[in-house]
């Protein structure tokens, strides 16, 4: 299997600026995905097409499989032993569940931001340089440039530019999470997976991350799992509602929140359960 080459197409599509994002290319296509943790059937016949340069929100109550799904997209789910999957997920046309695919290759194209800010116990600089370094970049000047570009991209550069060599644990929770986003940008991914990135943060830090997501979607496809329905409504273009491992409804965020087709979706977003 040939490696997943990065195709950074600059699509000059005048229409996509004005008309909705419907015409964006599909980046992830999930067909009949089933997943088991041992005997537990965690994902049931999931079918989803995720589009480029959009924010796709995944909502649903605890234990509905939304985190499991997002972790399947970069195969982090395999860190749990006894996981079994069937079905197909294509990333840019290639089946990522194919055992011959190198997960390291996939994860170079698909970055991930986790629920709890998890910087390494290293300096701010080393945190960002970690990704490029493991992919073989040794040139100090190149690394410097990547570090600055990534930190600017995650709008944290101004706060940390004078303390790049200090330990990342000296940053506040919100700053740490933006550092983690910057660390993720440093591997120059196409897709960023965010697994409840603001659930451990205060409202102000949450707002900054949300603003950042709006910035980032110009260049990256973002898939975000969130517990917070207002957040999904605020920042996403499309929303998928998961319940008991199934996709109940998947549509433009506007439709989901104003005119849901399924009564269960309506019950959930109106706060009747969850």
């Amino acid at each position, binding site marked *: 299997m040939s490696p997943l080459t990065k195709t950074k197409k600059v699509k000059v599509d005048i229409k996509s600026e004005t008309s909705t994002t419907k015409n964006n290319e599909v980046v992830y296509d999930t067909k009949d995905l089933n997943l088991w943790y041992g005997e537990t059937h965690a994902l049931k016949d999931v079918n989803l097409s995720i589009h480029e340069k959009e924010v796709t929100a995944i909502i649903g109550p605890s234990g509905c499989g939304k985190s499991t799904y997002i972790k399947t997209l970069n195969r*982090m789910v395999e860190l749990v*032993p006894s996981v079994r999957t069937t079905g197909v997920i294509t990333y840019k046309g290639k089946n990522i569940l194919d055992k011959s695919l190198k997960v390291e290759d996939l*994860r170079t194209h698909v970055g*991930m931001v986790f629920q709890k800010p*998890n910087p390494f116990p290293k300096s701010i600089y080393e945190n960002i340089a970690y990704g490029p370094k493991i992919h073989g970049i040794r040139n100090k000047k190149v690394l410097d440039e990547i570090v600055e570009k990534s930190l600017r991209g995650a709008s944290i550069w101004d706060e940390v530019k004078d303390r790049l060599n200090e330990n990342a*644990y000296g940053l506040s929770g919100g700053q740490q999470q933006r550092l983690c986003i910057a660390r993720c940008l440093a591997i120059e991914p196409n897709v960023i997976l965010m697994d409840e990135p603001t659930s451990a943060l205060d409202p102000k830090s949450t707002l900054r991350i949300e603003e950042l997501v709006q910035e980032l979607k110009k260049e990256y496809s973002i898939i975000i799992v969130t517990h917070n329905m207002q957040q999904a409504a605020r920042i996403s273009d499309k929303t998928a509602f998961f319940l008991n491992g199934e996709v109940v409804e998947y549509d433009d965020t506007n439709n989901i929140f104003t005119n849901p087709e399924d009564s269960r979706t309506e019950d959930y977003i109106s706060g009747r359960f969850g």
Partner: protein
Amino acid sequence: MKYIDDIKVQKRMNSRVLKNDIVKQLFLAATLFGLVVLAVLLIRVITEGAAWIDWNFLTGKLSTAAERAGIMGAILGTSWLMLIVVPVTLFIGVGTAIYLELYAKKGKFQSFIATNISNLAGVPSIVYGLLGLTIFVRAMDFGNVVMAGGLTLSLLVLPIVIVAAQEAIRAVPQHLSEASYGMGATKWQTVKNIVLPAALPGILTGSILALSRAIGETAPLTVLGIPALLIPFPEGLFDTFTALPMQIYYWTLDSSLVEEYAYLAAATIIVLLVLLFLLNSIAIFIRNKFQQRY
């Protein structure tokens, strides 16, 4: 209606607080007991032995005459032993721990091995002496040389190092390695750059303990037939040797014949303790240097 009756709570309050205080004193007493015994031991050893430590004692050859006896041979022997024990246990011990914790599939086989390693940590040291005698001295025909002693002591402390390293590796938060995997790092890159540096302080703490045990072990060395005689200083891995604990053992044995030997034994204990202290401070220095918070 209220389930908690304020009056009854008040009644019991005093006895609860009292119990709390008593327990605190008990724990303090337990701590002091250990400290006092240690202090008595140290004072006794130092008062008996300190006067006997001089340049000649440290650098001289062994002698039956107490005033002329030196322990250079034993110091060298112990140093040679450590030269084998440290690299062998660190390499094999940490390697085993990494494999068991990070590579091996969690299952019956893995837990079987892990359980047995813990059991091995509890096997009496004299049994390891017999093992070393059978394998290294006889079957491999090394004789009672540094190599045989070092490998025997390595086997003895290996389980301690493995268990300590396993625990240190397990204590590294999962979310750190997840972050590394999430960026496309391989397992080895994650182990090398994230897991090992974070686990290093714990691994070193365990190794200090193991090393302290190895350096003071006497029983397995007696079984191997390590002498404390007038023998040439060991110059390599296949020379016969003696070690500090052997020296202490034989001098204590013979103190019924020559009274001064008891003082020589005490003096040797001091040297052994200082050596141990030096080794430990190196390890603690490295540990503090790499200590990270997360």
